């Protein structure tokens, strides 16, 4: 039987007859990385690019993000796409707070990463002023390939992340620095 299905390669481990031994970290990382449920927080043109990213041509579902979660409680990956005004910053924070651990954040586009061209009193100069960010995707707006690349880079982070990281003092300190 021939199949076109691509399988994710197994992590490093010891293979023997009838058994396979590897680290729990790697297995958990593999599972997490290939089923990242995105929560789109789209406010402007980057959100339009994200629609293309999710649609059939670029198809983010190929990377395990089939299920777009519109509830922060069930999402793993917050994708902030577009200009975030200062008035919206508390709402973004609230969405982030409602996500359960482990959670990751991608800042898509120049505005979410740094405020972009909107160097003005009403616009938040990058979402990393209010929430921690894992991956920044440059571009104004970025092409769908770039967004997919950002997701794949996040997958690499997720794969190698220790299962203990979210309990580590460094992580707690990071959240504390954002008053979370």
């Amino acid at each position: 039987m021939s199949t076109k299905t691509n399988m994710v390669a197994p992590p490093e481990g010891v293979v023997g007859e009838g058994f396979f031994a590897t680290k729990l970290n790697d297995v958990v990382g593999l599972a997490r990385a290939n089923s990242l449920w995105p929560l789109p927080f789209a406010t402007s043109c980057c959100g339009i690019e994200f629609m293309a990213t999710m649609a059939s041509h670029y198809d983010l579902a190929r990377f395990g993000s089939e299920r777009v979660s519109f509830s922060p409680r069930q999402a793993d990956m917050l994708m902030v796409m577009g200009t975030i005004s200062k008035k919206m910053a508390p709402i973004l924070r609230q969405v982030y707070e409602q996500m359960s651990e482990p959670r990751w954040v991608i800042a898509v586009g120049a505005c979410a990463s740094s405020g972009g061209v909107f160097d003005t009193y009403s616009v938040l100069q990058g979402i990393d002023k209010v929430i921690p960010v894992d991956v920044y995707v440059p571009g104004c707006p970025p092409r769908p390939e770039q967004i997919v690349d950002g997701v794949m880079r996040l997958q690499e982070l997720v794969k190698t992340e220790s299962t203990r990281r979210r309990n580590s003092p460094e992580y707690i300190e990071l959240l504390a620095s954002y008053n979370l």
Partner: protein
Amino acid sequence: MAIETAIIQEKIEQKFANKVSNFGMQKDVFSFEVTSDSIREVILFLKEEEDTNFHFLTDLCGVHYPDNMIDQQFCVVYHLHNWIENTRIRIKTYLNGAQPEIASISDIFLSSNWMERETYDFYGINFMGHPQLKRILNMDEMVSFPMRKEFPMEDNGRTDKDDRFFGRTANC
């Protein structure tokens, strides 16, 4: 169809002799100035008088002129429109720079409610008698009135726009 500007001017001058001034066409719209204490009467008159019947408030906005005399540093501009005759009119009133205050017209034109809030939000002009004069577009915590010229337009919290990295400093 439009109402003759001379007729409008005559009617207003007749009623508010020394409160109005500077009649004239400005950018295709007939305009005049009103002292800030009589703005309500003038607008109510223009709205309810049968011959003028300016029943629609197109726009209400503020202007900041920091270089003017202290009594004329703020301006509130009203645009009225008579749909039946298709005639527009612009009314300007100047306010004190230290204490910009003017009577609200939110009971004459309900649509001015949000416009006055916006003008307060950006210029800090106090519309007395407004039912809910608070910020409408900017965040509530903001302390400045951003369209006033003394406040910088740029966000000073920006960290990726350091002049040193762009070769903009003098000894670079």
